[in-house]
């Protein structure tokens, strides 16, 4: 008998499994669960984009692309970034096409971290940063953001967390799970600190197209002197509903892009070819799709936030992504108890806030990437749940 426990790498064994996972395993055993827990658009990829993918297969484009990705795609990504976020990059120098934004995050960590380097991670945030930093022999340093600051990184929070070992600041905005965003004025306050301490930024902008209240996303790379110390990570999953195509990218200074490409070349070769052809179409002709989807999310967002506040679960107004993050402290329950009880008694699944970091305790994440009809039914059940416990 092989003792697999001895075989498996110690670092991997030490990585904590995702907190969301545990909860979903229970939910998946139950019947008729109505979920507000999925972090993925409910829209299908717009047809004209799917068609280009199909067409590329018809034409026989079934081989690897260059390691960095199709030249036309990289050029389109750069022209899109210039058009939307006013930052200029060169397709052949700064852009790497990856397997989802997640690969780009992983590559950034492995490319920039030396043993013991600290990576500042604002929380609550998406669950991948900590484990990826640990796997790259870095040390994750959590920066707890607060509801009263709209879950932004403030200069005070940042200064307090910085040590001589700080190497990277992760900027996960628009934020999953809080829906918080960093506006230009917020970024301008932290940029001088980042420069003073010679820190790099990993700006995870996967939700950049999903901002509301007329607040267009601002990339920190646009700020004076920041482009040379920023790796922008984004992708097609959220803005064009292309999660399953697995396509993302990084935009970074050439030496960093070259180093990342080296790892990408050995580990991945090239991102999926079909997806790359579809993505060219998305960037060229997909602006109207983004607008339509954003408008739809926006209506649901208003509805969800209003209903939670009416129910007495204070909900900070999210201005990005497709999540609301209501506070459940008034119920006297912990996040996990709330979610478990709600699941058991009303078969509604939402995600405990502490799955996104300790500072998420007292909150739950509610995804509104569901139809209005579905959302209304779930909210009705949550309201009943609260009434019955009064």
């Amino acid at each position: 008998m092989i003792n697999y426990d001895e075989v498996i790498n110690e670092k991997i064994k030490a990585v904590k499994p995702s907190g969301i996972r545990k909860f979903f395993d229970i939910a998946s055993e139950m019947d008729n669960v109505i979920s507000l827990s999925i972090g993925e658009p409910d829209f299908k990829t717009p047809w004209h984009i799917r068609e280009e993918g199909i067409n590329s297969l018809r034409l026989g484009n079934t081989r690897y692309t260059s390691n960095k990705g199709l030249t036309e795609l990289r050029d389109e990504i750069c022209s899109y970034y210039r058009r939307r976020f006013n930052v200029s990059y060169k397709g052949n120098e700064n852009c790497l096409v990856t397997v989802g934004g997640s690969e780009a995050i992983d590559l950034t960590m492995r490319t920039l971290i030396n043993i013991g380097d600290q990576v500042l991670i604002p929380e609550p945030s998406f669950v991948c940063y900590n484990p990826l930093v640990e796997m790259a022999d870095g040390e994750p340093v959590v920066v707890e953001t607060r509801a009263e600051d709209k879950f932004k990184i403030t200069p005070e929070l940042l200064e307090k967390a910085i040590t001589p070992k700080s190497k990277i600041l992760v900027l996960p905005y628009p934020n999953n799970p809080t829906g918080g965003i960093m506006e230009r004025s917020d970024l301008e306050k932290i940029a001088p600190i980042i420069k003073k301490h010679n820190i790099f930024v990993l700006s995870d902008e996967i939700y950049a197209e999903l901002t509301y209240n007329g607040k267009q996303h601002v990339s920190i790379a646009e700020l004076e002197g920041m482009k040379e110390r920023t790796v922008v990570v984004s992708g097609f999953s959220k803005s064009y509903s292309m999660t399953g195509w697995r396509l993302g990218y990084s935009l970074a200074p050439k030496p960093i892009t070259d180093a990342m490409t080296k790892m990408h070349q050995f580990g991945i070769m090239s991102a999926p070819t079909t997806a790359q052809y579809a993505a060219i179409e998305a960037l060229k002709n997909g602006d109207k799709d983004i607008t339509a989807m954003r408008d739809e999310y926006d209506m649901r967002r208003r509805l969800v936030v209003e209903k939670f506040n009416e129910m007495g679960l204070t909900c900070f107004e999210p201005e990005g992504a497709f999540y609301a993050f209501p506070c459940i402290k008034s119920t006297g329950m912990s996040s996990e108890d709330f979610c478990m009880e709600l699941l058991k008694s009303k078969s509604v699944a939402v995600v405990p806030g502490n799955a996104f970091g300790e500072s998420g305790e007292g909150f739950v994440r509610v995804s509104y990437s569901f139809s209005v009809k579905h959302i209304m039914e779930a909210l009705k059940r949550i309201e009943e749940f609260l009434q019955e416990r009064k």
Partner: protein
Amino acid sequence: MDRILKLLSENSNLTYKEIATMLGEPEDYIEKQIKQYEKDGVIKGYQAVIDYDKVKGADATAYIELTVTPEKDTGFDSIAQEIMNFDEVESVYLMAGSYDLLVLVKGASVTDIAMFVAKKLSTIDAVVATSTRFKLKTYKESGIEFDSDNEEDDKRSIIL
């Protein structure tokens, strides 16, 4: 399209307040707008979208293409008027193309519809020719996919 109409066309169950919240407008404004639409006949009614394929003993449906001779003063309008008076007729459209009127007819059976066409529609003087097409299955109606009920068809798996 007007955002209120778009929302109602997708889900007419929404309350004024819910629509107001979703669109970020005052509730009384939304109420006023909708009442105005109703008054002006922009909103004709509120109906459920029903998948009749799932209803036992439901009616048969046919689309009948009519070629007609327009009347001297009233053109197609008076003929359309005559046709829409039949209870069996659910919708009547004036079309551009190889025929003139498209008539949606419901009947208890295919035979019933065939008889209706033979006895009622064909005998109208202005009707020159008819072509009857029976509906076999509905895939999508009023923007709703019938085969894959969206809610049940949520194949999104739980990733992280």
